[in-house]
């Protein structure tokens, strides 16, 4: 592996009250790497992703994103600033898209650059249009989100995250809320991003995608990382019995 990971999570714990949802998680993501996190529902994979940009507050451990380190439990202005900078370096795509319904597609995409980065509107529009083009939705730039299909909404959400020009893209089950026939268009966009060298950390139930696109697969169960390796090794010779069960169910057609 390379020397300098872009994301490094070490010794991460998360409790929701008494519930220990993440237990001593340590993972790394290298620049230009695509890492898929798989596991059954409730295994803690979404929580892990949400801890990386602090939508969930880690209970213990350390998060490093592009040389910025935040330790759990620290408070104060300096810490808040670090979290803010980490959020600028990470783009997030949500299961439920979370597009801003009161703004047009293009306004959704340029909102971050204009209000957060204080970019000139003309420049932001240029970047916004380029990213809408990347997801193949430039023609929809003046529509409102409620006029788009689920797959189109998710592609706009991807463009919105890309427009902030993050170092890493985080995907939180990006196709789980979609009708089956709309999943393909989103996965195709993600594949294209991967081919362009985008660093991606993807929580997913799409085993086919993980197998085909990921450089590395992280398997989680009961709040722990139980296995991580290249997809071929995870899918062809899983070591942990829980991974074996997960892969087995995928092969027998019940991907979820």
């Amino acid at each position: 592996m390379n020397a300098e990971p872009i994301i490094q999570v070490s010794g991460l714990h998360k409790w929701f009250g008494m519930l220990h949802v993440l237990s001593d998680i340590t993972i790394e993501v290298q620049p230009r790497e695509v890492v898929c996190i798989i596991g059954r529902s409730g295994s803690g994979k979404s929580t892990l992703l949400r801890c990386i940009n602090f939508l969930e507050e880690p209970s213990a451990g350390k998060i490093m994103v592009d040389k910025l380190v935040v330790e759990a439990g620290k408070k104060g202005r300096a810490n808040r600033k670090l979290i803010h900078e980490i959020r600028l370096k990470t783009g997030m795509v949500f299961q439920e898209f979370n597009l801003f319904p009161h703004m047009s597609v293009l306004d959704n995409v340029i909102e971050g650059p204009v209000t957060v980065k204080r970019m000139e509107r003309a420049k932001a529009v240029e970047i916004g249009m380029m990213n809408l083009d990347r997801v193949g939705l430039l023609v929809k730039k003046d529509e409102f989100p409620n006029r788009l299909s689920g797959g189109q909404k998710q592609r706009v959400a991807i463009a919105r995250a890309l427009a902030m020009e993050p170092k890493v893209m985080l995907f939180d089950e990006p196709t789980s809320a979609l009708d089956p026939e709309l999943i393909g268009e989103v996965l195709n966009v993600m594949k294209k991003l991967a081919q362009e060298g985008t660093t991606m950390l993807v929580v997913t139930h799409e085993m086919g995608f993980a197998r085909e696109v990921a450089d590395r697969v992280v398997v989680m169960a009961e709040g722990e990382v139980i296995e991580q390796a290249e997809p071929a090794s995870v899918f062809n010779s899983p070591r942990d019995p829980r991974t074996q069960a997960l892969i087995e169910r995928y092969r027998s057609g019940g991907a979820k």
Partner: protein
Amino acid sequence: MYHFDWAIFLKYIWPPSAFQDPLIRNGLIVTVIVSVVAQALGVILGLFAALGKMSKLAIFRWLSEIYIWYFRGTPLIVQMSLLFFGFGVTHIYDFPTIFLGVVAISGAIQAGTLALGINEGAYMAEIVRAGIESIDPGQMEAAKSLGMTFGLAMQRIVLPQAAKVIIPPLGNEFNNMMKTTSLMVVISAGELFYGFEQVNARIFKPFELFIAASLYYLLLTTIWSLIQARIEAGLGERKGTTKGPGMMQRLFTGAGGKGVR
């Protein structure tokens, strides 16, 4: 048998002749301006109280709770009297007349507006909070993931969407506000009802005069209902959502009527 004085009645329901009496003309102007200012103050205070109530910090939550508890739990007329007479006699604040160019704003109008606005804020707090809570938390998360601060996310993402939920009850609050300004009569602020009271003190025609007074309030609330219907139709159109109650329904079902606070 009572002799209904048509001459007085007609003089006071017909605006051009009624407005020759400065008590009525100025009273109407004061009522409208005080309503707008007090409502605006109420919206601002309500916004802060709502955010306070939803704050992670206990001190803000308590301050908001106490504010809402007191101002919703005591009569407005008491709050207003306490503010004007109580603060005056203790010299906490004497409410001196403020001069804005050629306009003099009496202490009573200042105190009345303040009391109305602060009282209204306690009611607006619940309305604003309900509006904010109606917005999917995913919106705030998406905004934060783009690097927005809480304040920016509120301003750009959450409040513009919450406005759609807040504006209809806000309209009803304003309707109520225009009527409630009449309580300022207890501190002798020169609003519309005070004007009619003063005329009545001079000529003693309470039946004719107070019918006339009620017609002016009816005029104000009816005009506002029309404006409100337009605003809400605009909101619905833009978002493609269902319309609020229609004009006739709004006028005759007493939407927003809440009685004395």
